[in-house]
């Protein structure tokens, strides 16, 4: 028996290696093959951020809430929820029929355990930091007590950020970050893990006991990891894969757009909010003068980068909050290219004879990073700034330089992660200037009013007032310019046109794909 199973396993492995999974319509729910370049270390999104883990994690684990296309929370494991008037208490009423994949019921204690696990282990500390305690008056009620109002809490209860773990598996005392079950997780989501071959594939099977009736629609999801982008494109063109999320290269996008069978969309990344920007080290003597930073902003042609370098697939981005977010304030200055103004600002700052600066970039795909850095070298020469491009051979080298503040200018990509509290504050709070931590306030930007506004916005429960606080914040940083924002990273999803309900919500494919289905017949 063991031998035959091994033989079957071998066949599966061979079939995977050959990409022989025929995808598409079948008599039952059918199979969906997702192609991805991202390699997950494990599948537990409670202790690991990032796209690679979130995609399978959101299929395996359910979460208290989910979000629709309009940023409105929807019931998931919580069939209803109340936020107390003072914003200090959030009550979740759980569904009664949810089971983990091993047949045990999902209890309030599991939800409480999961929130504590995320709070203590996930890299995004701000998500659940204000959670003081969690009460579970009965098996289906969770009361989250906060030590200050925390409007970002509801978004942090999304599938990508707050997977509900079974306490009877993960609560055995092992360190959650290295728990053996992270690679063989049991959740209550629409799909169960069938097989996880690190670096190659994640095979997910329909959860027949999923607590939402008639879902999921698909029988099987296979996430095939193809690290070589050109091999991945060929797999998409040949129909060996049905969906390719998080595609950002203009050549890739243009190539798959030409494939008749496929649809390509940039919808589904609103909550990710990936912003590509040029960061200034505001403590560097040459860049501490705001006029120098503004001069650089006036010298750089954002339009050229978006249209010529990115072949028109990117969208311009001129502020710290992604332009597709409801908190974005469109009234902030764009710094449209104006070379004369740039020159006079430089002259005012005492650099009439020009200056020399270095620019770093993240090694890897060039289009959003190295190419822009090389453009800066050519473009800033026009206003007398002599740029030296500092190449980093690998990501750790770059990350070490930037996090230790050993840079003048650098290209960077930082994600908003839905609520500004999670992904935006970290870049601008002076209290988050932490040497050695990448994607902290590495610009070392400090403005008391900004700190004040952000701390107020973090606890402001009235959405309209909160929006006003963020509007003032955006106007200040757009003037101080610790960062010159360039564009939203052009993430696109390519998928088979026949698919019904493709993942175009705010979380894209980092969201349960239980409604996704092949058409009948």
């Amino acid at each position, binding site marked *: 028996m063991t031998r035959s199973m091994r033989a079957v396993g071998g066949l599966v492995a061979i079939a995977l290696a050959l990409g022989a999974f025929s995808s598409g319509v079948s008599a039952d729910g059918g199979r969906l093959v997702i192609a991805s370049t991202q390699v997950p270390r494990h599948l537990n999104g409670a202790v690991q951020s990032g796209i690679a883990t979130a995609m399978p994690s959101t299929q395996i684990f359910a979460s208290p809430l989910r979000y629709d296309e309009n940023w409105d929370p929807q019931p998931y494991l919580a069939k209803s929820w109340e936020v107390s008037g003072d914003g200090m208490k959030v009550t979740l009423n759980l569904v009664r029929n949810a089971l983990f994949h091993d047949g045990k019921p999902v209890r309030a204690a599991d939800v409480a355990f999961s929130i504590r696990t995320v709070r203590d282990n996930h890299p995004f500390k701000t998500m659940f930091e204000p959670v003081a305690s969690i009460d579970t008056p009965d098996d289906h009620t969770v009361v989250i007590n906060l030590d200050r109002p925390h409007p970002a809490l509801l978004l942090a209860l999304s599938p990508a950020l707050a997977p509900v773990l079974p306490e009877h598996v993960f609560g055995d005392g092992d360190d959650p970050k290295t728990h053996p079950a992270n690679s063989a997780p049991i959740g209550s989501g629409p799909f169960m893990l069938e097989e996880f071959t690190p670096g190659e594939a994640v095979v997910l099977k329909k959860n027949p006991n999923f607590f939402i009736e008639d879902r999921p629609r698909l029988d099987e999801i296979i996430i095939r990891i193809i690290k070589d982008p050109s091999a991945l494109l060929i797999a998409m063109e040949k129909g060996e894969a049905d969906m390719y999320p998080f595609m950002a290269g203009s050549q890739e996008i243009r190539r798959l757009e030409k494939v008749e069978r496929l649809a390509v969309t940039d919808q589904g990344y609103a909550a990710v909010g990936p912003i590509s920007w040029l960061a200034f080290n505001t403590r560097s003597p040459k860049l501490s003068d705001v006029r120098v930073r503004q001069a650089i902003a006036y010298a750089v042609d954002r339009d050229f980068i978006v249209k*010529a370098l990115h072949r028109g697939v990117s969208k311009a981005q001129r502020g710290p909050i992604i332009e597709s977010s409801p908190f974005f304030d469109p009234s902030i200055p764009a710094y449209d290219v104006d070379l004369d103004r740039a020159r006079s600002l430089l002259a005012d700052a005492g650099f009439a004879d020009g200056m020399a600066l270095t620019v770093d970039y993240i090694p890897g795909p*060039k289009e959003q990073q190295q190419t822009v850095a090389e*453009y800066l*070298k050519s473009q800033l020469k026009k206003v007398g700034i002599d740029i030296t491009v500092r*190449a980093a*051979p690998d990501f750790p080298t770059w990350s070490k330089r930037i996090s230790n503040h050993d840079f003048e200018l650098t290209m960077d990509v930082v994600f908003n992660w839905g609520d500004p509290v999670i992904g935006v504050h970290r870049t601008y709070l002076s209290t988050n200037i932490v040497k050695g931590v990448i994607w902290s306030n590495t610009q070392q930007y400090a403005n008391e009013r900004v700190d004040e506004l952000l701390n107020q916005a973090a606890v402001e429960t009235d959405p309209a007032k909160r929006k006003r606080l963020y509007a003032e914040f955006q106007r200040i940083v757009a003037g101080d310019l610790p960062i010159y924002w360039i564009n939203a990273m052009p993430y696109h999803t390519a998928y088979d046109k026949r698919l019904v309900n493709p993942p175009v919500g705010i979380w894209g494919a980092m969201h349960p794909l239980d409604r996704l289905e092949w058409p009948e017949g």
Partner: protein
Amino acid sequence: MDESAQSPAAEAWIAFCHNIPALAGLLILLGIVALTLYGTLFYAGDAYEIVWAPHEKPLTESDFPLGTDYLGRDIVAGLIAGGGPTLAVGLCAALLTMVIGIAFGALAGYYGGWVDIVLMRITEFFQVLPALLFAMVLVTLFSPSLVTIAIAIGVVSWPQTARLTRAEFLKIKELEYVTAARAIGTRDRRIIWKVILPNAAPPLIVSATLTVGVAILFEAGISFLGLGDPNTMSWGLMIGMNREYILDAWWPVTFPGLAIFLTVFSVSLLGDGINDAFNPRLRER
């Protein structure tokens, strides 16, 4: 002067001049060197300056005969500016290769015994490493710049020269004039440098010439893989930077590629010509 009394070098030069392909190689190479050194006199242009819309096709009515690259920089200016560094990397790497290779090969071949064994094992160690990968590791360890690239290429390509030198030394050290030199008490160092090395020179010169070509290709390969020095224009870097757009625009990749091809081709012809010129048996044909 009597014809029969010509020096070997002069004889070789005459033979070389009768070798049409070799002469052509020399002329092409001289032309390329002249263009990179004096090109700016005829064609003013800054290789880094954005002068036009990106991806302007070659031979249009614009002022840029070979078009522009992905940033709108002039490709001709890039070729002129990139030639010097490309050739310099090739020459420096070849020089380094010769220095290390001859030192190892000469000592191993001349002394034999345990010196030979130790030096040859070291050589073999470097020989079995995949050269391009090893060069990439070196460039990665010491941040990418033209100097590190030249050193990396030199460090990975000397074993062949070492083996060649050793073979020549093994052969020549048994010849009578070497025995004679030893008999009159010439010191080892003098025998190695003044007696054997000049007589082993012809194949080494050929090898050095070919190494220049290989080193230029290496530099292109490293730049193509994204480890080039972005602050110094070179042909390899031009290919590496523009390759992402090759489906949209072929010319920013093709012309530096052609330049590399022509250079390596002419260097190879030259190397073959030198080989033929120094080889008396071939010369008689």
